[in-house]
């Protein structure tokens, strides 16, 4: 009973945050509701016993990535979203289609799949066991992700550097004497 109550509590918060993300028109409100979704997902991970994943979810996702998002929203001074007219075909066919698909998937998962029962904290998911796997069996993928991160950092720097700033930097590599300096040299 306790497990079900906790699951439903955080699940309802999670879905409400996700729907609020869609309903809000200002991106900063969407970002804040996405943080709510991620925090309640961390609670769901805790219910499944994945303690370390829950901690990383809060630190990396709700912390670092969302700070990056909010930083960009405020940097670009993003205003309220302009609504464009939705197509009628999407409303007539898309909404019932999505509903039918969701009900089918939920029905299949609930009644036609032999998934097991889980108790609170059924899995060992502490830092020790995760580290044993990550630094032994998955060591090579772990090292490759560091290369990926490095490439992503370089890509971000290249993409955000202004073209005129790059041109200016090239100019200073082959410096031409400034007129004032030339004049100052003649006085000596």
């Amino acid at each position, binding site marked *: 009973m306790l497990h079900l109550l906790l699951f439903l509590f955080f699940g309802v918060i999670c*879905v409400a945050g*996700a729907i609020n*993300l*869609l309903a809000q028109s200002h991106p900063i409100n969407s970002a804040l509701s996405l943080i709510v979704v991620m925090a309640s997902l961390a609670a769901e991970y805790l219910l499944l016993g994945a303690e370390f994943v829950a901690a990383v979810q809060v630190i990396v996702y709700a912390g670092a*990535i969302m700070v990056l998002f909010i930083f960009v929203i405020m940097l*670009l001074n*993003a205003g309220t979203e302009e609504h464009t007219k939705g197509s009628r075909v999407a409303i007539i066919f898309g909404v019932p289609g999505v509903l039918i698909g969701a009900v089918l998937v939920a029905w299949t998962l*609930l009644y036609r799949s032999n998934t097991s029962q889980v108790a*609170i904290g059924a899995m060992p998911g502490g830092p020790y066991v995760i580290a044993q796997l990550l630094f032994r069996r998955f060591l090579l993928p772990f090292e490759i992700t560091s290369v990926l991160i490095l490439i992503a950092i370089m890509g971000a*720097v290249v993409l955000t550097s202004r073209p005129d700033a790059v041109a200016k930097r090239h100019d200073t590599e082959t410096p031409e004497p400034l007129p004032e300096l030339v004049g100052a040299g003649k006085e000596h």
Partner: protein
Amino acid sequence: METIPLSYYLVLSGILFVCGVLGFLIKRNIITIFMSIELMLNGVNLSFVAFAAQWHSLSGQIFVFFVMVVAAAEAAVGLAIIIAVYRTRETLNVDQVNLLKL
């Protein structure tokens, strides 16, 4: 010990993924579209952890880490692209960003 069916977690993950797809399709702000992608990744992460609990294998949780790494890299590059687009277009509305090259 109280138990609940694992499929509840999978249904929650499916609902989150569908919300992400809907946001990707109906939102017009490029940053909100990007946040919908993060929502989809979160839904997938929940199903990874749930299946890890079903099969009693921690590999699912390791995969969640790799998804998070890819999401972080994607967020860095994607937000850089958004800044570059905003610099040339002066808008964040995807309807007005209809050419790759200005």
